[in-house]
């Protein structure tokens, strides 16, 4: 079992990395880009067990440690 966690900056937080990447893409000629947000991707390998209880404990870890709720949002996905 694997958990995939995507952490992105909250909309209200200025994201200079995203802005810089967006500018670069525009300079390269890629059109129609509205915004870029640079975040983090974490892959957690798991021993297995009950999917729901794994989700519950990892959700807590995301909230407490893997993301900072003041500045970031996260998406947690558990894959088999």
């Amino acid at each position, binding site marked *: 079992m694997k958990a995939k966690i995507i952490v992105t900056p909250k909309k209200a*937080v*200025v994201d*200079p*990395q995203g802005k*810089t990447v967006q500018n670069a893409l525009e300079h390269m000629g890629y059109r129609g880009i509205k915004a870029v947000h640079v975040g983090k991707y974490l892959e957690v390998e798991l021993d297995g067990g009950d999917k729901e209880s794994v989700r519950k404990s990892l959700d807590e870890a995301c909230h407490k*440690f893997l993301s*900072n709720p*003041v*500045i970031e949002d996260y998406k947690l996905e558990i894959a088999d």
Partner: protein
Amino acid sequence: MKFAVLQFPASNCDQDSVHAVRVLGHSSRLVWHKECSLGDADAVIIPGGFSYGDYLRTGAIARFSPVMQAVRAFADNGGPVLGLCNGFQILCEAGMLPGALVRNRDLQFHCEHVFLKTNNLESSFTNSIPNGKILKIPIAHGEGCYFADQATLETLKANRRILWQYCDARGNLTEIANPNGSLLNIAGICNEQGNVAGLMPHPERASESILGSDDGKWIFQSVIAAFEEKRV
């Protein structure tokens, strides 16, 4: 007065902090992050550096070090805690100060002297700063852009908890004097009780005139003065 100066893996301003306090005639003890007690310390300094390599987020891992439980208990008991640079980031991650410190708006690491305006001369961290004095203190950080939601900013403002703001040499809070994009030019704040403060600049690197400025000493002097006043 006895200071405890914390040491995390990759702290790098611990000895500077010890020195700054020594110059003012007071002693400190270095406390390794795995220790669970602060001993008989009267104040805690969380120094600058790159604790745990800044992995995940600045300060995110250090806040779970055993010593931080002792720091929290010490602060809950009213003890003064001063976080400098990475120390400020750790205090925010630990939830002991509101908000967070994110990447500088220009994505560059800034290592330069800045000017600071002190807003509240009555706190335990500012009481000795001469009225109207603009402090010249260096910064050295890549993640010093202070962010908090609007409600938090309003609370900080209303309760005079924004202790220091980036300004120009004359004390004007301009955009250009803001080195990292911090909201409201915030360089340092304190908690509601007024006994926990954090600031991104490095007063310990500006505590003797040989270093180009000794303005930082006023901040340590304030902690000492507040302690001595309490003892009388």
